[in-house]
């Protein structure tokens, strides 16, 4: 394509040709399908650029009849409107679902990652101190992690313990410190989370300095964490 044609092409797409020039250009396009295709592609590209820079430069004032521009402008505005609305609708949702949070400032816990769409994410909410309940939970969790690993299916599991459930993660009370450590070593996609509110309350109300098993992460508010996970698309299981 000659450079003069290229100039014409740009002017045509911008709707800056006079009526006569336009007619001439349209004639050229009819004979040259490649030119027609480029005109359309350039039109789309410009439309996308205008979306990226939300306010386009002010239109240059020029004389002359520009009858034909309305069709392109309507098409472009329609596309942009639709793109804007669709993007506004879809983007936040996706961003929300695919975000992972590192649980503490030292970078422990699960690394931030973009979740694959088929990744299964489960947050177990433990508020019960019964060791039998905890034992069954650990067996379930281990069984699931092993099965998903064997099938190469992505999975993330968090066990959030608060109130009486904190017993599972307390050094002095837990019956499963070693088991928790083994599980945490074996499965990087498993995290045990303790609620700081519960820890603080035990100190204030009962003078207990809680010592956690080394594999436990601490989060400010257990319930808030569970809510956030649900908003991020995790499945919720109350133990």
């Amino acid at each position, binding site marked *: 394509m000659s450079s003069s044609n290229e100039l014409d092409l740009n002017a045509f797409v911008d709707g800056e040709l006079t009526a006569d020039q336009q007619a001439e250009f349209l004639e050229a396009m009819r004979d040259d399908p490649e030119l027609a295709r480029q*005109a359309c592609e350039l039109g789309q590209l410009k439309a996308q650029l205008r979306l990226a820079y939300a306010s386009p430069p002010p239109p240059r004032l020029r004389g002359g009849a520009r009858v034909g521009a309305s069709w392109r402008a309507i098409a472009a505005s329609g*596309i942009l409107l639709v793109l804007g609305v669709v993007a506004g*609708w879809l983007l936040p949702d996706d961003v929300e679902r695919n975000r992972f949070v590192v649980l503490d400032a030292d970078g422990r816990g699960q690394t931030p990652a973009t979740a694959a769409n088929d990744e299964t994410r489960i947050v177990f909410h433990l508020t019960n101190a019964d060791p039998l309940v905890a034992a069954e939970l650990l067996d379930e969790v281990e*069984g699931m992690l092993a099965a998903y690993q064997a099938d190469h299916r992505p999975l993330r599991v968090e066990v959030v313990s608060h109130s009486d459930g904190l017993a599972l993660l307390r050094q002095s009370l837990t019956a499963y410190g070693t088991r928790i450590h083994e599980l945490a070593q074996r499965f990087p996609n498993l995290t045990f989370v303790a609620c700081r509110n519960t820890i603080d309350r035990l100190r204030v109300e009962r003078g207990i300095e809680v010592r956690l098993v080394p594999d436990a992460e601490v989060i400010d508010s257990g319930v808030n964490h569970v809510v956030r996970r649900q908003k991020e698309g995790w*499945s*919720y*299981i*109350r133990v």
Partner: protein
Amino acid sequence: MYDRQREFRFAWKCPLWFCFAGLVGLLVWTGAAYAAPDSARQQVVYHISDGDPDRQRSALRNVANHLNILGDDGADIVVVLQGDGVTLLLRPDAQPQLPGGLSANATGEVRIGIEDLRLRGVRFEVCAHSLARRGIDDDRYLLDVDPADLVPSGIDELVRLQRAGYTYIKP
């Protein structure tokens, strides 16, 4: 006038218009997808993991009340029995198999309640894993459970249903 007509013809040949039509279609489709959950039947999964007969009875009552509000055709309700919750569907002759502290609860009022809910379209799924853990390895101890409703893992099933759009309630 002549110019305008020519340009009109050209406009229909331009792929831009196809893109536009496609995007409008996409928008309509997206809108429909967003609107759909409101008009569709409510999908709810109840998770029962408690072996206490009183709590189980009240859970059945919750499900019945829920159906009363929505109408039998207005809801798709699945009850997943997991952990000690599996005792809800155990016939009395399972009692000798069970560890201490657990009772086989599919008897009397509870049994009637279960059968009534089944007639109204409620599905009861039982975790095979939890049954085995409690010494139950034969489905003759269960109250008419379809083999398809004996799921390998209750937790996995709860996750699967939630991912399929079911709302989770733990009564």
